[in-house]
């Protein structure tokens, strides 16, 4: 500890260089903290979004391919299925030039309350959703984003079907994707008016009575359509959403690899800085050795310089990451509910501690070779060369 003031003073020898090195390390550490929260954040989103007894049936070829609407009745008849509804992507846009701003689906109102029992929709809302053919349940974040309220009428022009429909908002839903749901029958009638036959469904969502029966029910559904015109693939909601996040997870993996490489670059930058800093005072180090500082002491103080700088930078980086994610959380829960899923991205204490440890490790790694070289240099030779 008695060498700490010397170590600290040496760090202040070239303040700009120390600050820039610390900034580089802090940035890398902030990046590491933020990226380390992503897998856990995605898992949290998945866990919060998915119910363990809700399953999805879609065409095995992919969700863009439809299935006969008649499948719905067959799925509803499978033992263990409490309720099932069809889903059709409407692709409605408020303004075609802006494209589809939020997902919107035509669904069966019968069974909707059972399939989404965990949403806790009020009976009055469910009653209105069934009662009015043009009723729509809009996600809270979409309502707030567009400053709509219950009773408002909105118009969506479909990018899939040749129709434009107006909807009466009857209530809000907690869907984190911002989705709007309306009655399938409303779309069916509009399409009939346009001379278009509508007898398919994009997906079927069902609820199973018991989590233990989810797997056999899924197998039974797919077995039922094995030899039909549209072979199905049934999966849990968690698996379904996970597939959506699958690409994102790969992206996160790539980003994490890049972050690791950036961290490695920072090690080299810090090592170069430590090397420059030590090279500039080879003479001073020789003087310290001349007056009796042992090699081990020289090595330790030089290493402590690199470690201390990186440690301080690591703490700054970790605190910055914590602050940024906290601010994002506050923003997502308060000012911008459409960012609801982002509330799951919280940096844990474990990640903060790990990041600070990584920073310290960067410092030690970067300082090791230059410090070892300086401590091993012959005093007499250095004095001859330098003075």
């Amino acid at each position, binding site marked *: 500890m008695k*060498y700490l003031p010397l170590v600290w*003073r040496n760090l202040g*020898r070239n303040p700009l260089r120390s600050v820039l090195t610390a900034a580089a390390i802090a940035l890398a550490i902030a990046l590491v903290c933020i990226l380390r929260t992503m897998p856990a954040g995605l898992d949290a989103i998945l866990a919060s979004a998915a119910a363990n007894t809700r399953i999805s049936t879609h065409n095995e070829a992919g969700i863009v391919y439809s299935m006969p609407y008649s499948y719905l009745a067959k799925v509803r008849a499978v033992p263990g299925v409490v309720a099932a509804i069809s889903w059709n992507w409407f692709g409605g846009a408020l303004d075609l030039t802006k494209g589809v701003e939020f997902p919107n689906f035509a669904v069966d109102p019968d069974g909707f309350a059972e399939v989404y029992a965990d949403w806790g929709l009020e009976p009055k809302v469910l009653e209105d959703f069934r009662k009015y053919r043009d009723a729509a349940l809009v996600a809270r974040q979409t309502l707030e984003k567009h400053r709509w309220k219950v009773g408002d009428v909105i118009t969506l022009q479909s990018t899939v079907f040749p129709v434009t429909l107006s909807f009466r908002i009857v209530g809000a839903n907690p869907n984190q994707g911002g989705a709007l749901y309306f009655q399938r029958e409303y779309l069916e009638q509009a399409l009939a008016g346009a001379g278009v036959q509508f007898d398919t469904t994009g997906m079927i969502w069902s609820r199973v009575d018991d989590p233990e029966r989810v797997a056999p029910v899924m197998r039974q559904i797919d077995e039922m359509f094995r030899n039909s015109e549209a072979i199905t693939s049934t999966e849990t909601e968690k698996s379904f959403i996970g597939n959506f996040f699958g690409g994102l997870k790969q992206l996160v993996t790539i980003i994490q690899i890049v972050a690791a490489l950036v961290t490695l670059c920072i090690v080299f930058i810090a090592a170069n800085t430590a090397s420059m800093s030590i090279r500039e005072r080879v003479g001073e180090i020789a*003087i310290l*050795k001349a*007056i009796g500082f*042992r090699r081990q002491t020289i090595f330790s103080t030089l290493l402590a310089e690199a470690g201390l700088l990186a440690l301080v930078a690591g703490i700054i980086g970790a605190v910055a990451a914590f602050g940024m994610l906290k601010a994002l959380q506050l923003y997502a829960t308060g000012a911008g509910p459409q960012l609801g899923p982002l509330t799951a991205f919280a940096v844990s204490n474990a990640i903060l501690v790990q990041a600070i440890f990584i920073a310290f490790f960067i410092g030690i790694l970067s300082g090791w070779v230059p410090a070892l070289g300086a401590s091993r240099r012959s005093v*007499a030779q250095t004095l001859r060369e330098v*003075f």
Partner: protein
Amino acid sequence: MIDLVNVSRLYHRGADEIHALERVSLHVERQRFVALMGPSGSGKSTLLNVLAGLDRPNSGEVTVAGKRLNEMSEDQLAAFRAHTVGFVFQFFNLIPVLNGVENVELPLLLTNLGKAERRQRAETALRIVGLADRGDHRPRELSGGEQQRVAIARSIVTDAELIVADEPTGDLDAKNAEEILSLLQTLRRDFAKTVVIVTHDPRAEKWVDEVIHLDKGVLLEKRPGGAARGAAGAAG
């Protein structure tokens, strides 16, 4: 205090062999002020480094303050230098990020003294060299003469028996050079230090007890300096 017997030091520079010291034998009594003189490359700095425990001879025996340096490990030599030798260099070589008193305190970090005790000793050393009021100044805020005084304070703060100085007046004007030589003589006389300096400065001769001349690594001459002659004259 210092006993060197047949000390040789050989350097390799590329394919060339440089005989910096050739079979040098030397005896210096305690509490003497000795100047090592000679042309550049004569081996005087190498001799100083060897007797201060900074460099090892290829052959010969080196005994300083009763300790045989030949057999010491690097760490033992470092401990020997910390406790027995005080160093003064031509370019002062103070640590620029520390102020005067902190520079003087530096060798005391190697001891078990507490912070307050270290500070008190450093201030005492600065008082001895006449810089009691300049301790809070950084080296760049001090003149050359003042910096060399701080360096001398650093060399005596551990109460080392031997003070070695390599060209201590080499970077100073005449007035400051005289003051530094006078100060070194005071250390010898009033604080019982053995002082060995390497110098080209002919003014040093009148302050020292002995002048040792080297050339091409060989000890050519050992004769009394001005201080010894003055003392002998006063005695006669």
